[in-house]
């Protein structure tokens, strides 16, 4: 495994890379960081991929974006484009979850012709039809003095959206890891989620796309995912039983599953 410490879009970025072969960019969820891919990265690399896992700006070991916490998922997409080019990733796959999935879909819209394919998990490219979050509520949450017990709420909130098939010890570990966030960054990410919408660009996507959602994911309406899948030419759509909002952390042997999806995308890639 190799660590990169490079400048992307004006700030220092921390990126872990492992393996050689087809490049894959793996994107984490709101407020979290690349550590969500720690089990998947070596296993996927062993299957013949060059697996690149960044910490998005303001997350993990990456410095904050120059203008502070990012509220526009398009900014993250532009950041990822710069990273892809800086690391010389030729026709990479992009795999992301939640805001990472939404960013992956943005990349599919922006430069699908230069991607091998996209796996967007827990994302559907636009505004939720039955939103659980509002910009107003999130703005309130950004005032730290009005947002008590944040760590406990992230902990219990994570446990609530982990799938029924996940062993209790694993769920506990995921929730404990997720507490280690910067609430300002997470909340800004979620404002990005609430306000992003690239659905008008989905019919023009020029790479194969696979949308994946967990059946136990309270954050997502399956109808939104199916709708997005209907907009993208020839998209695949998979719902995972007993899985929640974080498939890459919840599913043992996720790398093998992902390998199957990537193999299918490659077969359909122009």
């Amino acid at each position, binding site marked *: 495994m190799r660590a990169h410490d490079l400048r992307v879009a004006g700030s220092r970025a921390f990126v872990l890379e492992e393996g050689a072969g087809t490049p894959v960019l793996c994107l984490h969820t709101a407020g979290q960081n690349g550590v969500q891919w720690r089990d998947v990265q070596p296993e996927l690399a062993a299957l013949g991929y060059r697996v690149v896992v960044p910490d998005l700006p303001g997350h993990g070991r990456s410095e904050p974006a120059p203008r502070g916490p990012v509220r526009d998922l398009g900014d993250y997409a532009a950041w990822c484009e710069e990273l892809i080019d800086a690391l010389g990733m030729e026709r990479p796959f992009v795999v992301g979850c939640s805001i990472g999935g939404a960013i992956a879909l943005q990349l599919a819209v922006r430069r699908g012709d230069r991607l091998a394919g996209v796996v967007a998990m827990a994302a559907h490219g636009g505004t939720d039809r039955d939103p659980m979050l509002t910009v107003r509520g999130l703005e309130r949450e950004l005032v730290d003095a009005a947002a*008590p*017990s944040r760590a*406990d*709420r992230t902990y*219990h909130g994570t446990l*609530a*959206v982990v799938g029924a098939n996940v062993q209790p010890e694993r769920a506990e570990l995921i929730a404990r890891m997720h507490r280690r966030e910067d609430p300002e960054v997470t909340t800004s990410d979620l404002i990005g989620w609430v306000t992003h919408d690239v659905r008008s660009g989905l019919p023009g996507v020029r790479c194969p796309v696979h949308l994946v959602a967990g059946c136990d994911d*309270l954050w997502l309406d399956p109808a939104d995912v199916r709708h997005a899948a209907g907009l993208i030419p020839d998209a695949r759509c998979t719902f995972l039983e007993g899985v929640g909002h974080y498939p890459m952390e919840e599913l043992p042997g996720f790398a093998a599953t992902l390998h199957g999806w990537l193999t299918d995308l490659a077969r359909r890639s122009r």
Partner: protein
Amino acid sequence: MDSGPYFEDFEVGRTYTGPERTLSPADVAAFAELSGDRHPVHTRDEQPLVHGPLGIACFFGWLYETGLGAHVEAALDTRWRYLAPLHPGDRVSYEMTITRARRTSARVNGVIGRHVLVRDQRGVLVQEGETAALVTARDADGDDAQRVGRAFPGAAWARALGERLAASPAFTTQTSTWDGTIGLRFGEDVVQFRIYRGRVLDCGTRTPDGPTFVLGAPDITWVRLLTGPVNDFTKRTMRGEFTVSGSAYEYLRLTSALVALVDEARALAKEAA
């Protein structure tokens, strides 16, 4: 009638189902005549609607047919919501869950709270309601102590939960810097727990300063939370099943304390099973 359940037999959390019942065109026509509600929406030729109250009336018929109403002395109240239309020829099924059981001071009977789901033949939820009844007790000298764990939101239940909270390290730690009163609202009834630095000073329906915040839900939501397979309180709050009044800040501050409170209330309910 000696068969059929008495007051003591209705355990809070228990669910009853039964056979479907067809609401025939003749039933709808007869109901229009009997009630006098001959409004065109019920009598027109094109897509007539079943009278909503026929769904209620047939619930009481279902209670009689199944024998579940054998020892009912009186119906006390009914609140009902019509969620989707029914048409003549539709078949409805009823699912009844016991939400409350409180013996009266006379001790010879008790009040049973019942939540009712009505589905059509496609499984669509068409009506939902609550209705309470006075039911004869089998034994006026019966021991209610063993049922206290499910006697929410009564005073005896509040005291029993207060004792458990005081002995729960998770709850006392999470409230160890707190000074306030937690209110829990079941339907329209609020019980309060006065907390000071991890100690439970008082519990019941009144405290001098009133609750700091009140966490509320319909009876059925509490029943599912407290008698269901897992503590899914956070999921239910995320789905908007609970409402909060009073200080939202203090409610959020007690996030973990409330999870611990629900753990204790669930353990208490299990004792009564």
